[in-house]
C-alpha cells in the first residue's frame, strides 16, 4: 500500500511536470514570437527615425555629409551614412543608408533603410510660378497634369482639376465659397521653393573644360544666335542673322555636358530634336539678351506620348522671356508645338504680339506644350473673344520629367527623395 502510493504520487508528479513544461514551452514560444516582432518593429521605427533625422538635416543644410554613428534612440541606436553616388555623368545624387538596432545594449534585431535623393529640378513641374497675379484664375474646365507649385496663392474659380501633386506657399484663394478645386495628386501648403537668382551653374557647365576639352557650347555675344534641330541628330546654327549656316552633330555641338549657352544674346530655336540638350539664353550686365525665341515648332524626333521610352529631352532656359515669335510658321491653325521643359528666371512664357496676331484663316491657334513651364510669373499668350487673338493653351505633361531631366537643368537648391527602400 505505502509503496504503491509513493509510485502513484511520483507518477502524477512526473505527468504534471511534463505537461507543465510543455505548456510553459508553448507559452514561451508565443511570448518569444511577440517579443521578436516587437523588437523588429522597434528596430524598424528607430531606423525610420534615424533616416528622417538625416533627411531633415540634409534639407536644412544641403551640404551636410556627417551622418550619425550609434546614436541612442528609444532604447536602441542608429547609424546613418550620407554620401554622393554617381549615376552616369551625374555625381550630385545622394544616398542615405541608415541602420537601426534594438535593443541598444544587446542588439539582436536590425533594420536598414536606403534612400536615394536627387537635386530637386524645376523640370519636374508641369507648372511653377514664383508670383501669380490674382487676376489670373484657374476655372472649371482647366486641368493641370503633373506637379504644380506657386510661391504665392493658387487662385480658383469653380472646380479646376489638378492631377499632379499641388503645392503652394500661401494657400488657396477661392472666388466663391462653393468652389471645389480638385486635387487628385495631393495638396500641401506652406511650401516655398526659391527661384534661382542666377544661372551661373548652367554657364559653368557650358564652359567646363576637362583635359583641355570644352564640355559644352558657350558663346558670349551681343547678337542673336540661331539654332535649328534636325531629326537626324544634327544641328544647324549660325551666330547672327546674316552669317553662314553650319551643320554638325548635336553631340559634337553641345559637348559631353549637352549644354548650349548663349551669354548676352538671344537664342532662336526650332526643329526636331533627336537627342538630349539644354539650351539657354542668358543676359549679362552689358547686353539685353537673355530671351529664347521659338521661331517655329520644337518637337522631339520620338514623341514620348506615343513612345514612352523616348530618350529625347529638351531643356529651354532663359534669363528673361521665352517668347513665341510672330512668324508665318507659328501663325497657322495647327498652332505651335513645344516639347521640352521651359524655365524663365525673370519673366515667363509669352507670345509676341499676342493681342493682335491671328491665324490667316481666322482660326484659333494653340500652344501644344508637352513638358512644363517654370517661370517668374504667368504671362499672357492670347486674349479671349470671338475670335480671340494669340494662342489658347493645350498643355500636356511629360511624365518622364518625374524621374529624369534635361541635362543640367536649373535646380531648386534642395534635394528630393527619388527612391526609398525599407
Amino acid at each position, binding site marked *: 500500500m505505502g509503496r504503491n502510493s509513493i509510485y502513484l504520487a511520483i507518477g502524477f508528479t512526473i505527468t504534471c511536470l511534463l505537461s507543465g513544461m510543455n505548456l510553459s514551452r508553448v507559452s514561451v514560444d508565443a511570448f518569444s*514570437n511577440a517579443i521578436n516582432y516587437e523588437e523588429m518593429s522597434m528596430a524598424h521605427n528607430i531606423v525610420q527615425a534615424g533616416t528622417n533625422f538625416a533627411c531633415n538635416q540634409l534639407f536644412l543644410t544641403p551640404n551636410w555629409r556627417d551622418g550619425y554613428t550609434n546614436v541612442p534612440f528609444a532604447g536602441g541606436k542608429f547609424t546613418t551614412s550620407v554620401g554622393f553616388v554617381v549615376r552616369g555623368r551625374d555625381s550630385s545624387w545622394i544616398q542615405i543608408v541608415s541602420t537601426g538596432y534594438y535593443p541598444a545594449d544587446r542588439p539582436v534585431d536590425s533594420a536598414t533603410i536606403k534612400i536615394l535623393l536627387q537635386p530637386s529640378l524645376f523640370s519636374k513641374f508641369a507648372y511653377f510660378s514664383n508670383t501669380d497675379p490674382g487676376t489670373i484664375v484657374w476655372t472649371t474646365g482647366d486641368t493641370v497634369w503633373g506637379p504644380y507649385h506657386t510661391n504665392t496663392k493658387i487662385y480658383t474659380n469653380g472646380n479646376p482639376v489638378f492631377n499632379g501633386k499641388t503645392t503652394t506657399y500661401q494657400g488657396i484663394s477661392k472666388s466663391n465659397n462653393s468652389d471645389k478645386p480638385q486635387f487628385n495628386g*495631393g495638396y500641401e501648403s506652406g511650401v516655398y521653393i526659391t527661384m534661382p537668382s542666377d544661372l551661373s551653374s548652367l554657364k559653368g557647365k557650358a564652359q567646363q573644360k576637362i583635359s583641355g576639352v570644352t564640355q559644352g557650347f558657350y558663346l558670349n555675344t551681343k547678337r542673336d544666335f540661331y539654332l535649328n534641330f534636325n531629326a537626324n541628330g544634327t544641328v544647324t546654327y549660325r551666330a547672327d542673322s546674316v552669317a553662314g549656316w553650319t551643320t554638325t552633330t548635336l553631340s559634337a555641338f553641345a559637348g559631353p555636358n549637352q549644354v548650349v549657352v548663349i551669354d548676352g544674346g538671344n537664342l532662336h530655336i526650332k526643329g526636331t530634336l533627336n537627342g538630349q540638350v539644354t539650351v539657354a539664353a542668358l543676359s549679362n550686365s552689358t547686353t539685353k539678351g537673355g530671351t529664347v525665341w521659338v521661331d517655329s515648332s520644337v518637337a522631339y524626333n520620338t514623341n514620348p506620348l506615343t513612345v514612352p521610352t523616348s530618350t529625347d529631352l529638351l531643356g529651354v532656359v532663359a534669363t528673361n522671356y521665352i517668347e513665341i515669335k510672330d512668324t508665318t510658321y507659328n501663325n497657322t491653325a495647327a498652332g505651335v508645338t513645344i516639347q521640352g521643359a521651359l524655365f524663365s528666371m525673370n519673366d515667363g512664357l509669352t507670345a509676341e504680339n499676342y493681342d493682335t496676331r491671328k491665324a490667316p484663316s481666322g482660326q484659333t491657334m494653340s500652344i501644344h506644350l508637352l513638358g512644363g513651364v517654370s517661370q517668374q510669373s504667368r504671362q499672357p499668350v492670347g486674349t479671349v473673344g470671338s475670335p480671340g487673338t494669340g494662342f489658347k493653351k493645350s498643355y500636356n505633361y511629360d*511624365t518622364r520629367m518625374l524621374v529624369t531631366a534635361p541635362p543640367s537643368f536649373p535646380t531648386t537648391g534642395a534635394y528630393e527623395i527619388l527612391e526609398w527602400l525599407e
Partner: protein
Amino acid sequence: MGSQVILDLIASSLTFGTLLLMAIRLNGGVSESSQMYNGDLLVQSNITTVINMIETDFRRIGYCANPANLPDPTKAIVYASDTAITFQTDLPISSTNMNGDSVIDVVKYYVGSTSELSMTPNPRDRILYRVVNNKPPKGANLGVTQFSLVYFAGNGTPFDDTLKTPVPTAQLGAISAMQITIQVENMAAQTLRYNTAKFDNQYSNAFWRQVRLVSRNLQNR
C-alpha cells in the same frame, strides 16, 4: 475474509476510481490547455507571418532600384479597393538581397471567398492571395478572416482625407497613406470542456492594425 475484506475492496475501488477520474480530468484539462496554447501560438505565428509579408511589400510600393524604369510614380498604385490592392514595385532579388532587379513588378493582394475554405471548421477564414505579375495566385490558409484597407489622401481636405473605395483611377495618385487591418483566427474550433470559464470564444484570434502605413515612394515628387 468476510465483511472486512468486502469493505476494503469497496473502499479501494472508490479510492482508485476517484484517482482515475482525477487523472482523466487532469489529462483532459492539460490536453485542452496545450491545444489552446498551441492554437494561440499558431494564430500568433500566422499573423506575424502575414504582417511581415504585407509590411515588406507595402513599404516598397513605388520603389524601383532604377528609378528611371518607373515612368510615373503617381501611378504606382494601379487599383485600390477596401479588400484588394494592386501596385507596382520592384521586388527583392532574394530573401538575402532586398535590392530590386530594376524590373517593375505588379503585385496584387486580395482575399478569396469563405466558400474556398469550406473544409475548415472555421466558417470565416479565407485565403489571402498574393499575385505577382499576373502569375497564378499564391495563397496559404493562414486563417485570415479579415483583410481591409482604408486609403488616405494628403489632399488638403480638413479632418477627413479618407478616399472612397474603390478609389477612382484619377485619384490613385493622391493616396499618401493607408490603414491595414488584419484578423487571423484559428482554423479549427476549440471545444472547451474543462476551461470554459477562461474563454468565451471557440476560435482563438489575433487582430492587427497598421493605422497609417506610408510608402515613402508614393508622395516623393
